[in-house]
């Protein structure tokens, strides 16, 4: 039970990062999320702000911080689009909260676990996005299951490379 039976002391120990990283990484994620689809012929099979939310939520032990990170990034994403502002904010707030909460039960240094968690949370945010649009707000939004699945796969692939890269910037005692 390396996953669930890890040392509790180590699990609840919050990871720390340079202060600049808290501002720079989300900003870079937002800019790349807005800029990269132009190079990829409009295929948006990734969600960098979601990955940043998950990463920081897993790294910090506070669900509040996870929620705040997700909310800010989600609101910025909403503002760059043309839908109602707050839809992505809600989905990423929930994602941040879940990631931070699950951190107590999983080994966050285990990369495959983090990657699988990214895949699941990506699918969850897609479902929530469609649910809020169609059910709560009543928008006639069509959706494509394959596209959402590919997006989750893309997030998984990026998380596999991005998380170890960000781990290098972690402040070690």
């Amino acid at each position: 039970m390396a996953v669930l039976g890890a040392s509790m002391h180590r699990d609840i120990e919050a990871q720390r990062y340079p202060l600049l990283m808290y501002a720079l990484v989300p900003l870079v994620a937002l800019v790349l999320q807005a800029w990269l689809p132009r190079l990829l012929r409009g295929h948006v099979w990734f969600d960098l702000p979601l990955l940043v939310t998950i990463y920081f939520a897993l790294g910090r032990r506070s669900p509040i911080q996870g929620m705040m990170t997700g909310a800010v990034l989600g609101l910025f994403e909403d503002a760059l689009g043309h839908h109602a502002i707050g839809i992505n904010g809600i989905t990423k707030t929930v994602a941040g909260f879940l990631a931070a909460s699950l951190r107590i039960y999983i080994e966050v240094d285990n990369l495959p676990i983090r990657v699988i968690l990214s895949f699941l949370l990506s699918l969850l945010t897609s479902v929530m996005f469609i649910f809020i649009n169609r059910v709560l707000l009543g928008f006639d939004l069509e959706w494509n299951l394959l596209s959402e699945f590919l997006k989750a796969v893309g997030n998984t692939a990026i998380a596999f490379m991005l998380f170890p890269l960000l781990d290098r910037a972690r402040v070690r005692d």
Partner: protein
Amino acid sequence: MEPFLVRYRNLLVLLAMLVAQLVGLAVQVRRTDGGRSSLDARDPSGVRLIRMWANAIVTPPELLIHSSKTGSLGLWQSYLDLRHVHEENQELEKTIGRLRLEQASLLEDARQGQRLQALLDFQQKYIYTTKAAQAIGSSGSEQSRVFYLDKGSADGLERDMAVITADGIVGKVREVFRNSAQVLAINDQTSGAGVILETTRIRGVLRGNAAGQPQIVGLLADQRIKPGEKVLTAGGDQIFPRGLPVGVVDKVVRDPDRDSFIFVIVTPAAHMAQLDEVLVITSTQPRFSPKQQQDLATSEALMGAEAAAIKEQKKASEIMGERLPGLTDPNAPPAPPVAPGSPAAVSPPVKTAPPLHPDRYTPGGAAVPEDTKQAAAPSANASAKPDVKAKPKTDKTTARPGSSPAKPAPKTDSKPGQGTAPRRNP
């Protein structure tokens, strides 16, 4: 982390509340172009503050990346381009000269079209002024197919302006910031453009589907709609001018919700996935640049010279026509006497057929003017000798053409119609 939260709990709660309220305010408040803030959510002229803030943060790095990428690629490209630049320059100058002449001709046609349009009181508009812009970013979401331009209100862009490329329409300006603008693409699910099928003339509304393909919705099933048919803008949406290319029909699928309705999937003419440079239609009023006006004046001057040449040709043909032989005008003044044997005497300007049985009512049959007799003398002498005795009586009978004859016509040696009547020159 726990001591941090415990120690600064109140401060964090305050910060959270302030952020939440700021976000709420930013969502509600709209900022107009003139810097005026409005709380009216239905006011379409303003931009939400939160959108402005997000745009102000994200756009500068996007511009920086875009410009640095363009600059680094441009250096290498410039080196490659310098190789054949001289030949290309000459070719381009020739092309420019030809295009300017064509443009002048097209502008003339456009002006004529506008005049006709005004006469017919049409409400359709022409494209006259566009602004070139570059796409620099997107929303980053497939559910929100918008992209950003590097031009904004400072460059004259406004909401609801049409965005096109040389291939076809792209979208419309949705939000305008000072140095950037957000464009809603035609393949977004919330977009709408009035379109018409070129051949069948069926009208519909174009919007995007979940896969990002434009489709015409709300059409009744029609067997005439075939793949490959061109789709044009209908001009009824007050955004896109009429007749711009939209794309071609890709396929027709049935509406799963309504049996008798169909979706017409359209392959867009513009490359929606790779948009770099676009044109924003900033004005549909007739505005010609100084260069265009100069070209137009040149065209008109050329046309004036052509008209003068045609007038000269007409004048020359009239003079030529006067000099060529034609019908004799009976009311014309008598021609001066011509010496016998001269060309004019040989070819009198008379083409009417001589009457077979002339009488005193026949014009010229009873009385022959002196000049005509003189002109006809050589021919008369050549054919038959006229009776000189009959001449005085003939003059008397023709003194009153409308009176009854007092005496019968005198006999002559000549055959009827000869000698007295004008004769056709053999």
